[in-house]
Every structure is written in C-alpha cells, then in structure tokens.
C-alpha cells in the first residue's frame, strides 16, 4: 500500500515551482483572515529587508478556513506575474497556501510545513502565528539570523507582554520542563520561532505524527525534544506581543496542548527524567525587560468560584486521580473563604504530579484527566495573582524560581508513584 502523503498533489506541484530555497516561513492558520494579511505582509517586508538575496517562500498551512484566509496569504507573493510590482525585490517570493486534511490542528499544520521545508531543502524555517499582529519585519531577522548566520538549531521567542500573560506556562510548563528535563526556556511553547532545516528534518522523522503530540502541543514537544537532545537553543527578544482582542482563550485547549503534551513526554522520556537533569544554558539575544505594564482586568473572584465549584462537582473524578491526602487537602482548600485561600506551590506541584501519574496509568480517559486539571489550575492562578499583585518583575521571577524548587522537592513523590504505584 502506498504511504499516505501529508502533502496534496497540488501542493507538491506548487513546491516544485518554488524549487530549493534558503528560508521557509510557515504560517499555520484557521479562519484568521482578519489578521493574517497584516502578519504575512510584515513577514514579506522582513524577508525583503533582511534577506533579500536568500531564496524564500511563505507557506501557509490552513486547517480549512472559510473566510478567505488563503487568499490573503497568496496575495503576498512577489512575482513577475503580478500586475503592479511596486515592490523592489531582487527575487521572486512565492507565497503559497495549502489546506491540510484532518484539521484544524496546529500539529498537522506544522507537519505540513516541516515536510515542505524538508522537500525544499531550506536552511532555515520560521513559523509565525497568524495572530501575531504586533509582528514587525525585524522579527524575521531576530528569528532567522541566529539560525542562518550563527548556526543555532532552534530559536525561541521572548516577548514583552503583560504581567499576567502566560500563567499556565509559568505555573506548569516552565517549572515542570525545568525540573524534569533541565529546559530553562522562557517560552517553551512558542507561537513564533525558527529552526534550522537540519533540525526540522530530524524532527520530521520522529514517530509522533500519528500520535496526540503530533496533533497538538507539537511546538512544545519540539522544544522539549531539542532541549533533551542538547541541541543549540537560543532565545531571541522579539518585541511586544499582544493578543488579538477577539482571540479565543480556551483554557481547556491550552491545557491539552501543554499539560497533555508534558504528560505524554513523561512516558516517552521516563528513563531520562528519573535522573537529575543538567540545566541547559539557553542564551538570550537582545533581551530587554519583558514585562509591559497594562491594566489587568482579570477577575480573581471568578477564578476562586470556579475552583471551589470544580472541586465540589468533580469529586468522583478527583477521587480516582488523586491520592487521598492531596484530595483531602484540596477539599479543605475549597472550603476556605476567598481571603484565606492559598493554593501553595508545594500542593500544586504534588497535584500536577499525581495527575501525571493518573495520565500515565490511564486511570480514566486521558483527555478527561487533563480536563479535570483545569479548575485546579484556576485555583493556582488565583493564588499566583494574589501573591504577585504588587510584585516587581524581579520579585515575580524569584517567585517562579521558588515554584521550580517546589516542583523539584516534590519530584520524589512523582518517581515513587510512578515506580511503585499499583
């Protein structure tokens, strides 16, 4: 039986016309017509400004948009066919678009882009989020130069962003990735990043594309994989990142992409994290203070309410996931009034580890385990917000360091349950 190809025939024909290139810029989209045009224009301007001599292509992998997203991308091409070529470019810049099957899923989009990068033998590939409306042409240089000129394998972003953005990353992904794998990257689940063609090809040949981590959270998986493989990672300061006003912020989806992926990685790398990892040094290029002031309109009361409500309603589920001391402790917490409520880092670390164990043993449906973590995370977020309401960025950093330590201290708990549990 012929191997099922991720690339459609039409797309392959388009790639054939693009030929071998130096740079691929991938844009995974799904109904992003509102912002993708702006993003792709900035990408194009960045390529023209900083890499006019490199052969480049913008590849859009679309998950089945019906709002004209693909047309917006195609319009960014620079060719001799376009009616008015007011752009002074040395070369043809192809901008092609394909719809992949089985979407929308960022992992499949990334698989498509990686396959194209591999076919075109690109030296570097950058992936940018269609929601990065603050993307400036210079981002292209900051992402691609470390790969093209300095021989790095993976370039991860650092943004200037509001104080309380990225709570899940800071409270779960960062401490866990650091504790288990020594991965100290600030944005381990990047929206805009770049990697060398070689790294891309190797990642493409990983046997993950039929699995969960090949569908969602693939970027996080790539970061972990590269960090574990001791590749040359570097962080590059990009600029301000704001969310699109109407961007959906689906906490459950985010939890699936991050916690789900991390939990899967525990299975894959169990031999590795049982040892104490070496901390991976990841230099930061052009780093600036990365916290911008902005009004925080987060409703802590709601977080608290959803936590207590979740603990109450999901009791039977928690019963099968958590050990009884942890379970009791959570029930006690849910009984406290909001002023006295504190979800300590230690308890949080233990909770996460016990969820990881439940996930490993598939005590109930794995997806249900991940979903059940959401209300608990809200509780943790509440405490984090309370503790850092008046913190300076430095103080917040030290709080996160402390949390990492607590994850480290609780690690034996994880190992013990993993090895000894029934």
């Amino acid at each position: 039986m012929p191997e099922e190809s991720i690339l459609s025939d039409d797309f392959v024909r388009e790639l054939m016309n693009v030929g071998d290139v130096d740079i691929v810029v991938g844009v995974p989209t799904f109904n992003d017509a509102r912002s993708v045009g702006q993003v792709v224009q900035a990408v194009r301007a960045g390529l023209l400004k900083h890499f006019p001599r490199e052969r480049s292509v913008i590849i859009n992998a679309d998950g089945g948009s019906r709002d004209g997203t693909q047309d917006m991308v195609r319009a960014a091409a620079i060719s001799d066919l376009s009616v008015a070529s007011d752009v002074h470019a040395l070369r043809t810049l192809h901008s092609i678009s394909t719809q992949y099957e089985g979407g929308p899923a960022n992992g499949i989009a990334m698989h498509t882009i990686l396959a194209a990068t591999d076919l075109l033998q690109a030296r570097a590939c950058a992936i940018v989020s269609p929601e990065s409306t603050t993307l400036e042409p210079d981002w292209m240089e900051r992402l691609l130069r470390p790969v093209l000129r300095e021989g790095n394998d993976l370039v991860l972003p650092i943004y200037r962003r509001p104080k309380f953005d990225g709570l899940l990353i800071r409270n779960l992904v960062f401490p866990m990735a650091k504790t288990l794998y020594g991965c100290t990257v600030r944005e381990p689940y990047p929206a805009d990043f770049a990697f060398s063609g070689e790294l891309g090809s190797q990642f493409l040949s990983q046997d993950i594309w039929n699995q969960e981590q090949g569908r969602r959270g693939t970027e996080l998986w790539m970061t972990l994989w590269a960090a574990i493989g001791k590749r040359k990672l570097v962080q590059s300061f990009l600029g301000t990142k704001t969310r699109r006003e109407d961007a959906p912020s689906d906490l459950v989806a985010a939890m699936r992409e991050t916690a789900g992926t991390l939990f899967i990685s525990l299975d894959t790398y169990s031999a590795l994290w049982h040892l104490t990892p070496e901390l991976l040094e990841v230099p930061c290029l052009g780093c600036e203070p990365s916290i911008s002031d902005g009004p925080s309109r987060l409703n802590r009361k709601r977080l608290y309410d959803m936590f207590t409500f979740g603990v109450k309603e999901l009791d039977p589920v928690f019963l099968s996931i958590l050990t009884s001391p942890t379970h009791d402790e959570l029930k006690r917490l849910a009984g406290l009034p909001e002023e006295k409520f504190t979800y300590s880092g230690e308890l949080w670390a233990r909770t996460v580890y016990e969820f990881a164990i439940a996930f490993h043993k598939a005590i109930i449906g794995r997806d249900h385990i991940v979903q059940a973590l959401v209300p608990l995370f809200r509780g943790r977020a509440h405490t984090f917000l309370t503790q850092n309401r008046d913190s300076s960025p430095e103080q917040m950093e030290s709080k996160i360091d402390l949390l990492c330590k607590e994850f480290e201290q609780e690690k034996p708990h994880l190992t013990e349950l993993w090895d000894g549990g029934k």
Partner: protein
Amino acid sequence: MWQNFIGELARTMDEILRSVARFLPRFLEMLLLVVAGWVIAFVLRAAIRSVLRIVRFDKLSEHTGAAEVLRRSALPSPSEMLSRFVFWVAWLGFILVGLSVLPVPWIAPPISSFFGFLPRLVVAFFILFFGLLAASFFSRAALLSGVNADLPSPRLISQTLRTMMVLFVISMAFEVVGIGSRTVLIAFSLAFGALMLGLALAFGLGGKDLARKYLERRFARGTFPEEPRKEREDELSPL
C-alpha cells in the same frame, strides 16, 4: 419357569448391557466433546487474549473510560472479561453439543433453542457492555465540560445523561434478547418524556426573560434602549 426367568433376566441384562454398551460410547463421546471443548475454549481464550493485547483493547477501553466501570465493580480488565466470556460460551456450547449426542429425547429442543438464542445473547451482552461504558464516558465528559464551561449544576446534567443512556442501553439489550421488551421500552419512553418536559419547562421558565427581550428586540428594534454591555473581563491568557 426358572429357566424362563433366567432367560428373561439374561435378556434384560443383555438389554441393559446392550443399552449401556450403546449409551457408553455416546457418553464417552460426550465426555470427549466436553474435554475437547474445554481445550478448544481454552485455546480460544488464549488466542483472544493475545489478539486483544495486540490491538491494545485495554488501552482502548481505558480511553473510553471502560476500565473504571470494571474496576469499580471489582472486575478484571476488559480484555480478560471478554476472553472469559468467550471461553464460557464456547465451552458451554461444546457441553451442550455433547449432551445432544446422548440418546435422551427431551434434551434436544432446549439445546437447539440455546443455540438459537446464543447469537442474540452475545449481541445483547456487547450492547450492554459498551453501552454502559459509553454512558459512563459521556456522563464524565459532560461533567467536565460543564464544570469547565461554568454551567450550572453539571453533576445533575451528567447524572441525567448517564441514567438516560443506561436506560436506553438496557432497553436495547432486552429488545435484542426479546424479554419484556415492551415494558422496558415503555419505561424508557416515560422517563425520557418526563425529562424532556422537565427540561422544556425549566428552559421556558428560566429563559422567559431572555425570550421576551429577544422578541422585543426583534420586533421593536430601537424602542428599548440597549442594556449597557457589561465590561468584558479578560479571560486568563494561559499561554
């Protein structure tokens, strides 16, 4: 006379012996069938076990939450259950075939009806098994999404869903087996109808304000000032 008696006795003995001689091979045959059946069923069980292991049936049913039901009722793993079930059905089948070999006239009809009944039983069993699994899975899914979407009383929704599905599954299973199908169906219909009515009432009562507002806005746009939109609070930005 004695001679006669002896002769009769001998003939009877002979007959008995003959019938025993006639019966004994069949009995042995039956025993052989039962033993062979046990062996075959045993092999079948082993085969099914390994097939299920290869297709990762346990994982599959774990993913659908099947393991939980079994674990709660202190039952072995789903693949074990299935292989045991197959083992017993196969062996029972062989025992019954063995019995039918015996020259016992009254034993034949129940056996044939057993074999007629067997496929239905298997189907009913599967419906019940997977139906209950599905009920448990979907009710938990409903519970989790209810909690995460901040819906009111997710546990009630979840329990209702589970009850409905269990009822539905049972009625289906009975339907297949053909026992009291009518009664169960009526019970199910009653319960379902009651629930729908309840939901309709609840929605109607709860949503009457919403409905009124909608109608007002729909038919008299501009007549009523729009309610000021509540300041939108940021949802968490997790990533």
